[in-house]
């Protein structure tokens, strides 16, 4: 009986979460449409809005393949941020961890010619190390992880660029393309590309691999760890109240560092998925902007209200409208409209708690009135769910 009620409250909670996310998306799309109207009213509907909505399907199957190839790393950076959120940390450093992950993967691929799963592992380890640093600063010096992560984002970017570029003579640097070597076209690196099992032929792309499935598997693993294991419970407990967790016998310093290591490892893994699929190559001359994938991970996590399974869907959505934006005819519209829409959605997500309260009020107000008695019992369960 009790268990039944608990799951109902849980279901209700996730339903409200999904509805709040959809509301954010709807308002974001509406704002995007208004911008399209403002820029060029004549083409706003069919050449603008519909193309963004269609996303990759506008140019299927190629567009869908492209969308999936971009979604895989996005799921991972989203998971990285979501995992940190769940444990009470704000991992704004996913971009830096992603950078280090990219370096780990590409170094193992281009210099050491290792098989793809070893390269992925290297990416994961490098990301984890870069995530550990803010964790140590937070645990032992009580410096806010946001500041440390921001600093180490840039340190990581300059460091990786320096090593890869090496004044133009780095071993990983292809001076003709001003990028790192293309894995598919370089002798000895073929084994480092993630296998595609025919997906490339199916989607007529050259970068759609099994990466998206790997990302989904990791998302499920993270969900299990967070929701079904003692380890995950401890991590969340530290996030909720450090002092209470210590009182309960949990080593809170170790757990903070572990949370950041896992978050960093997830971001690094994402970089591995992206660069080992050969979606594009690293450009070491770009020293003014961090990889956008890291910051889009924040969007993904917020839209999914930090639910690991939800990140899969929200990453696919963000990737969908970004690819849709890239199909906009540049004659009429800048392709960054898609970024604008996702930016608005994230801003709305920042206060989605408010939406959630409103939706819950609208949907469940009637039931609450006539079931006042039952409500009194479900309330604590609902609170517990929120706490998670």
């Amino acid at each position, binding site marked *: 009986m009790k268990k039944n009620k608990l799951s109902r409250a849980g279901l209700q909670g996730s339903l409200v979460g999904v509805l709040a996310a959809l509301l954010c998306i709807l308002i974001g799309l509406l704002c995007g449409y208004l*911008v399209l109207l403002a*820029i060029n009213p004549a083409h706003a509907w069919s050449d603008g809005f519909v193309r963004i909505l269609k996303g990759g399907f506008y140019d299927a199957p190629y567009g869908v393949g492209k969308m999936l190839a971009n979604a895989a790393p996005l799921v991972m950076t989203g998971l990285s941020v979501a995992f940190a959120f769940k444990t009470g940390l*704000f991992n*704004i450093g996913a971009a830096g961890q992603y950078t280090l992950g990219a370096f780990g993967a590409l170094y193992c691929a281009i210099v050491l010619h290792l098989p793809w799963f070893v390269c992925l592992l290297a990416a994961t380890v490098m990301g984890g190390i870069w995530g550990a640093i803010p964790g140590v*600063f937070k645990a032992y*010096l*009580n*410096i806010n992880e*946001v*500041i*440390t992560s*921001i*600093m*180490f984002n*840039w*340190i990581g970017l*300059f*460091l990786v*660029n*320096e090593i890869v*570029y090496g*004044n133009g003579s780095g071993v990983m640097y292809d001076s003709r393309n001003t990028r790192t070597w293309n894995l598919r076209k370089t002798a000895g690196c073929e084994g480092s590309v993630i296998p595609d099992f025919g997906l490339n032929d199916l989607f007529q792309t050259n970068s759609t691999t099994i990466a998206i499935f790997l990302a989904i598997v990791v998302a499920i693993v993270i969900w299990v760890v967070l929701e079904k294991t003692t380890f995950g419970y401890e991590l969340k407990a530290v996030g909720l109240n450090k002092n209470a967790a210590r009182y309960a016998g949990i080593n809170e310093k170790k757990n903070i560092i572990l949370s950041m290591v896992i978050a960093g490892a997830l971001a690094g893994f994402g970089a591995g998925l992206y660069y080992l699929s050969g979606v594009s190559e690293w450009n070491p001359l770009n*020293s*003014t*902007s*961090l990889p956008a994938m890291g*910051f*889009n991970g*924040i*969007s993904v996590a*917020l839209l999914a209200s930090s639910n690991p399974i939800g990140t899969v869907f929200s990453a696919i959505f963000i990737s969908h409208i970004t690819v849709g934006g890239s199909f906009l005819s*540049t004659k009429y519209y*800048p392709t*960054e*409209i898609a*970024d*604008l829409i*996702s*930016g*608005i959605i*994230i*801003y709305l*997500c*920042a*206060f989605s*708690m*408010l939406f959630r309260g409103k939706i819950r009020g609208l949907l469940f107000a009637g039931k609450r009135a006539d079931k006042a008695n039952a409500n009194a019992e479900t309330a604590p369960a609902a609170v517990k769910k929120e706490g998670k």
Partner: protein
Amino acid sequence: MLLLIKYTLLYGIVLMLVALGGMFSEHSGIINIALEGIMVIGGVAGVLALTMLPADAPAIVVVLVSILASAAAGMIYSLLLAFASINLKADQTIGGTALNLLATAIAVVLAKYFSESGSAKLNYSNKPFLFSIGGLELSVFVPLGLVLLIVSYVVLYKTRFGLRLRSCGEHPQAADSVGINVYRMRYAGVLLSGALGAVGGMAYIVPPVQTWNFEVGVAGAGFLALAVMIFGQWKPFHIFGAAMFFAVFKSLANIADSTFLASFGWSSNIYNMMPFIASMIILAFTSKNSMAPKAEGIPYDKGSR
């Protein structure tokens, strides 16, 4: 050497302006991580104003109008942060991050809309902003920044408004109990940071070059300004010192290839890294006695007194 002084002053003033903005916001109790985005918005607004003004307008008008346009845009944009974090009590860090993401998108869309070529690059003339003293070419932002520094100090420590602002960042409940409107004070703090951050963004973009690609935003200068603010312990003159300290490294990166520094064989990446590493080391040593406003980051709720 003259080149080093020039770059240091130009870049240091930018960091100082933005950090002063952050300081006002944090003294009112709102963490303003959106400084990067505010800089971008201020930059794009100022540059657009520059390009739209008639070419034969007197220099003083051009400078004043574009700076005011930039400050106004920054204030409007910072209202988004104020509304989310003061009225809706949203998480300030998340709201700020969202605004950073949004700002670059807005700037690129605007720049592409207004530029003739359809790319995100805008061309403008920076002549009205530059003047030179004895071979040292400076921008109007240097004297403007120094004036604003002194004004900031006076406002924060010598006026009734400053005292009230600081009280809202230290103990908003106590401030409210003596009749200070905490919400209004926090709005004031965030708006001030919007104006200063936006002017800082313009000071970053306009003086050194005549064309700017808004796809790169302001390349992390806003985040560096946050570090400057912390390093400066939330005090105006300390912030000035910290900004100059950071700016020296940045200037070294700029001139690394062309001067005697080239003989060390260090690339600009290494110099670029230095201010970040330095600020981490300093943070590690000063974290125990931080002067951060006590109530920053906590939404003020009248009911929770």
